[in-house]
C-alpha cells in the first residue's frame, strides 16, 4: 500500500524547485549517528487484497458476540446498535475531520457535540457536559480532579463496589496528582453501606464516589450516601449506566454533583473495549473546572446561529500547565454515535429498553438461582440488568463451560477487599436476549456447573 501520489516526474520537479537532486538530501541534516542505516525489520508492504486476507485470518481466530450469545457485562454491554447510527456517524466529512478549530467549516461536528451535551444533560438531570472523555474510568479520574480542585481538599473516598478497573485507574492517576482513593466499605448485601462511618467523611474529603448500579449490577443507596457526603462538604460523584436512566432516577436527582459513565452502550460497538467514550456531566458550579472540549452556541457576524468550542481557557492549548486536564484528542466520533443513538431511542425507547433489560435480567436471575449449585450472590439486593451468581464450581470453569456451549458470561469478579468474600460470576442481560436464549443459557449453565 502507498497513498503518496507522487510520480517520478513529480519528485524530480519538486526537487528541482528545492535545488536538490535526491530525496536523501532532505534528510541530510539528520546526524549520521542517529540515522537508521538499514531497513526497518518489518515485512514488505502488502497489496490491499493481501492485507484484507491477513486481517480476515486474524478475525477468524476470534470468537465474537454474533457467534457467542452474550450475557457478559462488567461495564460493556451487548445492546443493539441500530444500523442508522454508523450509517450516519460514518459519513466521511465527520470521521475524517479533526477538532473543530475552524468553526465555519466544522458546524457539523460542533452542532452534533452541542446536541450530545444537551442529551447527556437531559439524561442525567445535570447542567453541563463536554465533548467526551476517553472512557468511563478516565472520566472518573477527571471528575475526581474536578472535585479536588473545587473543594481544595485532598481525600477521595470510593465505594468498594465501584468497578475494580476504575479503582485501578484512579490509583494510577492518583499517584500523579497526589492522592490514593480510600475505600468506602461495602456491606454484605453487595452495596455500599448506606451509613458510611469508617473512614468517616471528614472535612478533608474532596469526593465521595459510588457506582450505581454498582459493579455487581446492584442498586446503591445513592441518596443517603450523597446526603452524607454533602453534609461533610464533599463533592458527590456517581458512576452511572446511561441506559439505566429510562427507569432509574437520574444522578442529578439523586444528588450527584458530577456523573460519569462508560458511554459504550450508546450505540458503540463492543470492539474489545474501545473506542468507547467517557461521559461526564456536572452542575453549573463546576463548569469552569470541566475537562476537555465544550461546544457552545453563539451567533456569527450576521447574527446567524452557529456553534464554537467555548470556555477554551480551561484547556491545555491555552492554559497549558494550569489546564483543568491534559486531554486533547478525545472520543468525539463516539459522542456523535451516542447522539444519533439517543435520537433513535427517544424517551419511550429508553424507558422500554430499561424495562426490558431489567425484566429479562430478573427472569434470568430467577431461573439461574433455581439451579442446584447456583445462588444469587446478593439475593436481597435489587439490581438493574446485571447480577452476580455464586457457583459451587469455580466460576472460571463455569465460564469456560459456557463458552464451549456457545455462551459468553462474566467477568468473574472478586467480592470484598482482596477478594475476602470469594468470587462471583457476573451475568448481564440486555434487551437483545430472548426468552429462548435465556432458557438455553440456563440449561447450558446447569451443564457447565456440573
Amino acid at each position, binding site marked *: 500500500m502507498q497513498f503518496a501520489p507522487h510520480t517520478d516526474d513529480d519528485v524530480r520537479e519538486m526537487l528541482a524547485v528545492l535545488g536538490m537532486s535526491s530525496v536523501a538530501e532532505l534528510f541530510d541534516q539528520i546526524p549520521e549517528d542517529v540515522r537508521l542505516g538499514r531497513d*526497518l525489520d518489518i515485512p514488505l508492504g502488502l497489496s490491499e487484497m493481501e492485507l484484507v486476507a491477513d486481517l480476515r485470518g486474524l478475525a477468524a481466530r476470534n470468537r*465474537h458476540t454474533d457467534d457467542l450469545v452474550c450475557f457478559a457485562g462488567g461495564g460493556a454491554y451487548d445492546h443493539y446498535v441500530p444500523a442508522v447510527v454508523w450509517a450516519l456517524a460514518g459519513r466521511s466529512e*465527520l470521521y475524517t475531520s479533526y477538532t473543530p478549530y475552524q468553526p465555519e467549516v466544522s458546524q457539523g461536528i460542533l452542532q*452534533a457535540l452541542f446536541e450530545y451535551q444537551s442529551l447527556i444533560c437531559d439524561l442525567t438531570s445535570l447542567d453541563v457536559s463536554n465533548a467526551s472523555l476517553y472512557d468511563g474510568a478516565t472520566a472518573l479520574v477527571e471528575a475526581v480532579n474536578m472535585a479536588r480542585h473545587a473543594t481544595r481538599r485532598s481525600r477521595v473516598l470510593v465505594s468498594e463496589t465501584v468497578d475494580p478497573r476504575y479503582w485501578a485507574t484512579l490509583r494510577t492517576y492518583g499517584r500523579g496528582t497526589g492522592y490514593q482513593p480510600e475505600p468506602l466499605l461495602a456491606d454484605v448485601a453487595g452495596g455500599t453501606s448506606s451509613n458510611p462511618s469508617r473512614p468517616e467523611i471528614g472535612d478533608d474529603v474532596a469526593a465521595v464516589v459510588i457506582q450505581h448500579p454498582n459493579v455487581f449490577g446492584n*442498586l446503591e443507596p445513592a441518596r443517603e450516601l450523597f446526603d452524607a457526603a454533602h453534609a461533610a462538604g464533599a463533592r458527590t460523584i456517581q458512576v452511572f449506566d446511561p441506559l439505566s436512566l429510562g427507569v432509574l432516577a437520574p444522578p442529578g436527582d439523586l444528588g450527584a454533583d458530577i456523573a460519569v459513565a462508560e458511554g459504550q452502550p450508546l450505540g458503540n460497538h463492543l470492539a474489545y473495549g474501545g473506542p468507547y467514550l467517557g461521559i461526564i456531566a456536572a452542575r453549573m458550579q463546576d463548569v469552569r473546572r470541566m475537562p476537555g472540549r465544550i461546544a457552545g452556541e453563539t451567533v*456569527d457576524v450576521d447574527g446567524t*446561529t452557529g456553534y464554537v468550542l467555548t470556555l477554551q481557557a480551561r484547556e491545555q492549548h491555552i492554559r497549558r500547565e494550569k489546564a483543568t486536564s491534559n486531554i486533547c484528542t478525545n472520543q468525539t466520533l463516539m459522542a456523535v454515535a451516542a447522539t444519533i443513538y439517543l435520537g433513535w431511542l427517544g424517551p419511550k425507547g429508553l424507558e422500554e429498553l430499561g424495562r426490558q433489560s431489567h425484566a429479562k435480567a430478573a427472569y434470568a436471575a430467577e431461573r439461574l438461582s433455581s439451579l442446584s449449585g447456583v445462588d444469587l450472590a446478593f439475593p436481597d439486593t435489587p439490581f438493574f440488568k446485571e447480577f452476580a451468581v455464586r457457583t459451587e464450581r469455580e466460576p472460571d470453569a463455569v465460564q469456560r463451560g459456557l463458552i464451549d456451549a456457545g455462551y459468553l458470561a462474566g467477568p468473574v469478579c472478586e467480592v470484598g477487599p482482596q477478594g475476602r468474600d470469594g468470587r462471583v460470576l457476573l451475568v448481564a442481560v440486555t434487551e437483545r436476549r430472548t426468552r429462548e436464549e435465556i432458557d438455553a443459557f440456563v440449561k447450558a449453565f446447569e451443564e457447565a456447573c456440573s
Partner: protein
Amino acid sequence: MSAGAVGAPVRRTGPPVPSTLRSLSRPGRRASMLPPLDVPEAEITPDHRRSGSVDLPEVAERDLVSHFTRLSQRNYGVDTGFYPLGSCSMKYNPKVAEQVAALPGMQRLHPWQPDSTIQGALELLWRLERALCEITGMHRATLQPPAGASGELTGLLIMRAYHTKQGDPRTKILIPDAAHGTNPASVTLSGYTPVKVPADGRGLVDLEALHRLTDDQVAGLMLTNPNTLGLFEVDIADITKTVHDAGGLVYYDGANLNAVLGKARPGDMGFDIVHINTHKTFATPHGGGGPGAGPVAVVERLEPFLPAPLVKQADESDGGRGFEWDRDRPDAIGRVHGWNGNFGILVRAYAYVFGHGRDGLKEVGERAVLNANYLAALVRDAYPLAYPDGRPMHEFVSTAKPLRRHGVRAMDVAKRLIDLGFHPSTVYFPLVVEEAMMVEPTETESKETLDAFAEAMSQVAREAEQDPDLLHEAPVTTPVRRLDEARAARDLRLTWSMGGGAAGSKAGAGVVAEPSADAAGEQPTA
C-alpha cells in the same frame, strides 16, 4: 489548475438556523422499536425508580438521517479536500482500514472475553507492538493509552515510577517553550513541575540553557523531534546525553514521527520513552476530534513500569502456543485506561503499518518531508519561515507578520483560505512564533494540490495589501461566517436547556457566566 479546483464544498446552505434534534421533536414520534417483552415484567423498587420520563427529543428515523446527513455536509474533512493542519498529520485515511476494523471478528469482541477466544486479536496487538517497537527503536510498548496526551501522562508516570524505585523521585520536567499544550498539562498531572527550555536562534533546543537547567531534580525532558517548529533537533544525541548524565529520562512526543519514519528512530537518538499518535502517523481517522490511540514504547530498563496487562506469547513449556494477557506485572504503574485502549483504532493502525511495510513507511516519511519542503519553498516569500535558516522536515512554521502592516492577522488569512476552498493551516501555534501559520501537507497530497494551495496563499497575501477587508470579512461562503466566541463564553449556551438550539422549543436566555479569557483571535488551533 486554479486554486478553486481543489476547493471545499462546505458552503452556505439553505436554512440559516439549522434544525436541532430538539426543534425536530414532536411528542409521540419515535424511531426505535423493540420486540415485545417475552418474559414477565419486573418492578424497579420505588425508591430507585425514575419519576416521569426523560425529556429526550422524539424524532423519526427519517428525521435523524436527513439531520445528520445535512450536518455532515456542513463539515470539512480530509475526504473533502486539503487539510494542512500543522502538528496533526491530516493525511488520507485508507478506506480499507475502516473495512477491516468492521469485521465482526474485530468489531464485536467483548472486552471480558477470555484469552482463548480472542487469539487473533491478541496476535494482532502483539504484532503491532513489535512493529511499533521496531519503528521507534524501543523494547516494549503498551497499547493502552487512548491518545497522545494520555500517552504523555503514561510516560511521565513511568518516569515517576522509575525514579521512585531508584529512591530518587525528583521534581521537574524540562520542556521546550514551543511545546504542545498537552506537554505541560501532562507534567502537572504527573505531579512534576514543568520547566521551560528556550529555543536558540536556530529554533532548536538552546544547549547552553539545557545544560544550565539540567540538575539532579530533573526527572526528565520531553521533546518532539522534529520539534514543533518542524525542525530536526540536530544536537539530539547531545541533548539526550545531557539529561541521561544527570540521571534523567528523555520522552519523545511522537506527534511528528511521520517525518522520520524508517529514517531515524527515537531509540537511536537516545530517547527512553516514546508515544505514537496512530491518528497522525498511521492515518487512523481523527473522528472530528477523536478517537485516536497513543501507544507508549519504552527502553528495556523501563519495561517493568509499563501499564498492565501486556500481551505475551504463552510459554511453550506450558504447552501454550498462543497469546495471553500478562497481568502479573508488580512494578507496573497500573491501568491508564479502563479497558485495553482503543482496540478498533489499533486494528486500523495495524492495517496501515503492515499494509505499508518497511518500504512503504519509509516512502511515507520521504514524501511527507518532500511535500513540506516544496510547499515551504513556494510560500516563504509571502509568509517568511519563522526560522529561515532551518530546513523544515514534514511541516513548517511561517509567519503572517508581514501582513500585519495591512491590519491583517494570521487568522484573517486562515478565514480567507476557507473562502478559497481550503482548510487552513494551524494558526497561533507554536505560541512562541508571532502570527504563526504551521503548515503540514502530509505525504498524501499531490503536487497539483500543493501548487494550488500555494497559489491561494499568494493570492491572499496580495489581497491583504490591496483589499484587507476581504480578509477581515472572510469567510463569506460558509454556512456561518465568523462566530462570536467571546459571546459564546460569556452568554453560555452549552445545551438546549440553557437556551441553546435557537430553533428549539426550549429557547430562552443563555446562562451568563463570569468574565472569561475566551475571545476570538489568538488561540492556537492544534
